[in-house]
């Protein structure tokens, strides 16, 4: 089998799995689980094979044109370089883990068949995005992910939160996709092709006439998909979906697509200094804002969601300083540890019977109930906080190092030999990313510590509820993901061969600064926690949905459905013992609700749209309908007038018929004589 064939099979297998899963799900329930797991597993194995064969060498390009499509051809093209090969491996591995985990997590779910098929379709779409060498084909995968996220986030559609969250995810990402589409068209109009290689060649030869406009339009779509400020608001709400879906969306698919897309087309963005600065500011705001918001969240999954937003900010920050190697490195390591964190959070929610950190902090001995989750999540949190020697440390230091290079003006865009040097990165972008990144390192360590302490070291009168042993599939997956989380850092010296050749090993200054800030953040949070545990004992709180026999998904669904009822809203909880509340002070309230960005959206978009809808309804009911009713009434009047002629008397009919034919005959005779004479 050639490498090309193998690469084609990688997205195709999960797609076929999804198709058969949807077709056979009802009729043959026994096939659902193999159909969910095996194609994804095979795709992961094949992705590894493709990566091994590609081996970081020259990019593999293959294309076939199905049908002529006018002036700008659309081709089924593959473009596999080191980035694509490694990201595909990440997608395949995480998707396989999620599918395995789901067999345990949603074991009694009546809609498991369609769920698994949609996860497969989601995976297939992401793999298509990763491997595609044609922007239009990439867009197909991009949009399929959008619709899949809508269905999967809304999996618990019985709950109001899930319904509105799925709609929000769909609409907000679509809000970005519209400019994205225009950006693609503008790009193809300038470059004359949708092929990525063709676009990059056009950039190199200076054929791109509107780089800033194109870059900003594309950036809108990326911001929507990758949950960057200001289109990130869908991601925290998307926590209303099942936990494995969150892991998939956050670690491997959807949000990674945006970052990966910029990494692919970085020369286009680098051709415009303005776009890079915008990207840097966007990344900085996203990082700091999301880290502050994460400190105030009560739902464990929302903490992780905001942390995803922040880590994606790191990646876009790395892209803003022109270092896509660092960005994709962080994407890979983040994919591993964030998938682990989410899947671990699923175990925690099941074991605790609640998704509220406030309630968990009043439970004794949760860590002893779920030792596997405790140890793996601990390591993943250390990786998140960038504590050496775990994976997150190396990738984050690569980002910070790149930002430092850019800030002091040493950065040059090394985008592979063919593209050469395309200009310099503005040092303002470098400084923005560096400062924001260092600040976020402090905050990240703080909220990671908060999560760890509140979830596992609760102190209270109650024991953690006993839900029995966690399903084997779920725990096994945690340990599988534990390996890259703990050890991916050793790949740092090897990875430049796969990427552009930029040095990815940590530099001394940023390492010391970053690690020091992270330790400081963790210590401050620990101190605050010690200070507030006394308060926690005095303020009992908690709504625990204990259901030992139910599948994990059921207890999660109940937890999501009852959170707003128990604590007032989906995001925060009125817990005086929260160390985050102590540290944030007056910032706590706005941070809880994401700095009121939703309210801004409501005022900017929702209300005008509603008013327009009311206007349209008024016009439809009062104006258009008048004509419709008038048409109906007129026809009825005309009918009753004509009905008078229908007497039923045959002689009348016959008389009218003859009179008419007489007139016709006279006319015919007149015409004949007229022409004849």
């Amino acid at each position: 089998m050639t490498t090309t064939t193998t690469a084609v099979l990688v997205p195709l297998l999960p797609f076929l799995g999804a198709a058969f899963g949807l077709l056979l799900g009802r009729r043959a329930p026994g096939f659902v689980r193999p159909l969910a797991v095996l194609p994804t597993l095979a795709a992961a194995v094949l992705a590894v094979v493709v990566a091994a064969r590609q081996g970081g060498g020259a990019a593999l390009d293959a294309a076939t044109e199905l049908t002529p499509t006018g002036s700008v051809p659309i081709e089924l093209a593959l473009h596999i370089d080191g980035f694509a090969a490694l990201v595909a491996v990440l997608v395949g591995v995480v998707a396989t883990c999620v599918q395995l985990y789901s067999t345990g997590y949603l074991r009694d779910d009546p809609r498991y068949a369609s769920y698994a098929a949609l996860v497969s379709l989601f995976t297939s779409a992401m793999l298509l995005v990763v491997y595609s060498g044609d922007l239009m084909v990439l867009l197909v995968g991009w949009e399929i992910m959008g619709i899949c996220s809508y269905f999967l986030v809304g999996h618990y559609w019985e709950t109001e939160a899930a319904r509105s969250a799925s709609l929000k995810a769909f609409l907000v990402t679509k809000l970005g996709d519209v400019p994205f589409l225009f950006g693609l068209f503008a790009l193809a109009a300038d470059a004359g092709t949708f092929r990525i290689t063709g676009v990059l060649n056009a950039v190199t030869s200076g054929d791109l006439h509107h780089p800033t406009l194109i870059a900003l339009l594309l950036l809108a779509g990326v911001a929507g998909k990758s949950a960057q400020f200001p289109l990130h608001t869908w991601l925290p709400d998307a926590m209303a979906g099942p936990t494995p879906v969150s892991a998939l969306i956050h670690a491997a698919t959807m949000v990674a697509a945006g970052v990966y897309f910029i990494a692919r087309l970085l020369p286009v963005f680098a051709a415009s200094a303005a776009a890079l600065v915008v990207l840097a500011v966007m990344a900085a705001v996203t990082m700091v804002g999301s880290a502050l918001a994460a400190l105030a969240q009560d739902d464990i999954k929302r903490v992780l969601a905001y942390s995803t937003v922040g880590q994606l900010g790191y990646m876009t920050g790395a892209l803003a300083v022109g270092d896509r190697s660092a960005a994709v490195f962080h994407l890979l390591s983040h994919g591993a540890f964030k998938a682990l964190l989410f899947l671990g959070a699923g175990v925690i929610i099941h074991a605790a019977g609640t998704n509220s950190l406030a309630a968990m902090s009043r439970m004794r001995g949760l860590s002893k109930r779920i030792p596997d989750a405790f140890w793996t999540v601990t390591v993943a949190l250390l990786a998140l906080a960038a504590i050496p020697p775990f994976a997150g440390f190396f990738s984050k230091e690569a980002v910070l190092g790149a930002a430092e290079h850019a800030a002091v003006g040493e950065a040059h865009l090394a985008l592979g030999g063919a593209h050469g040097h395309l200009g310099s990165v503005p040092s303002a972008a470098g400084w923005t990313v560096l400062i924001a990144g260092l600040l976020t390192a402090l905050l990240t360590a703080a909220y990671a510590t908060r999560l760890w302490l509140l979830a596992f070291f609760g102190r209270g009168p109650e024991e953690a509820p006993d839900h029995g042993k966690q399903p084997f599939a779920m725990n096994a997956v945690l340990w599988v993901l534990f390996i890259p989380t703990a050890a991916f850092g050793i790949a740092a010296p090897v990875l430049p061969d796969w990427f552009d050749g930029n040095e990815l090993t940590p530099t001394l200054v940023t390492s010391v600064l970053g690690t020091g800030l992270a330790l400081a953040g963790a210590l401050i949070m620990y101190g605050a926690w010690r200070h507030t545990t006394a308060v926690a004992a005095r303020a009992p709180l908690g709504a625990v949905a204990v259901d030992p026999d139910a599948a994990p998904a059921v207890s999660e669904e109940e937890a999501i459905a009852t959170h707003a009822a128990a604590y007032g809203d989906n995001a925060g909880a009125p817990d005086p013992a929260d160390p985050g509340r102590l540290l944030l002070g007056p910032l706590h309230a706005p941070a809880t609700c994401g700095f009121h960005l939703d309210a801004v959206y409501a005022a900017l978009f929702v209300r005008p749209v509603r008013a327009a809808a009311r206007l349209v309804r008024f016009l439809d009911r009062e104006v258009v309908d008048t004509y419709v009713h008038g048409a109906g009434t007129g026809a009825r009047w005309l009918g009753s007038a004509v009905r008078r002629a229908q007497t039923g008397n045959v002689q009348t009919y016959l008389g009218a018929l003859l009179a008419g034919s007489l007139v016709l005959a006279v006319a015919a005779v007149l015409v004949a004589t007229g022409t004849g004479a």
Partner: protein
Amino acid sequence: MTLAAASHGFLTPSGVEIAFLLVGLVTLGAAVVTVTTKQLVHAALWLVVALGGIAVEYLLLTAEFIAWVQVLIYVGSVVVLLLFGLMLTKAPIGRSPDADSGNRWAALLVAVASAAVLVWVVVDAFRASWIDLDGAAQGSTEVSGRSLFQHWVLPFEALSVLLLAALVGAIVLSRRNGEGPQETGRAAAPVSREGQR
């Protein structure tokens, strides 16, 4: 034909033409009375006069066989049938004031208009055409029979089938239902429903 046209003229009618004209006037008058009289039985009798007049016209046109067939079938059988029909439907004897329906004036208008148009067209077309009635009779029994059984045999036989079908149809339609068995034919089915209502 042009020679014939030269030897004849409107203002010098031959004897045949005068006879044709007079008989035609009688026929037309009888026809008008047939469609206007208020006594239904009289209408049938005036119809006899009109049909007989047409038979005479056939004779004048040298179509003897058709004339006798006209007398036999129309005057002999059709009118008798019509009289039977009038009696079977209990038509009133004597004047019946509502013999004409309400749209009489519209009918008159249509009839007069079409008469005017047709007369105009016909006169305009055949103003200079003459029928040569000299020579052997064109409608003698021998001539008619020869052409009928030499050239028109197949339509003639088909017509006999049609007459048979009409005979059966008339019997089926006019027999009383409910007594006989159902095999009187399919045409009886809706009628029987009608009768039971």
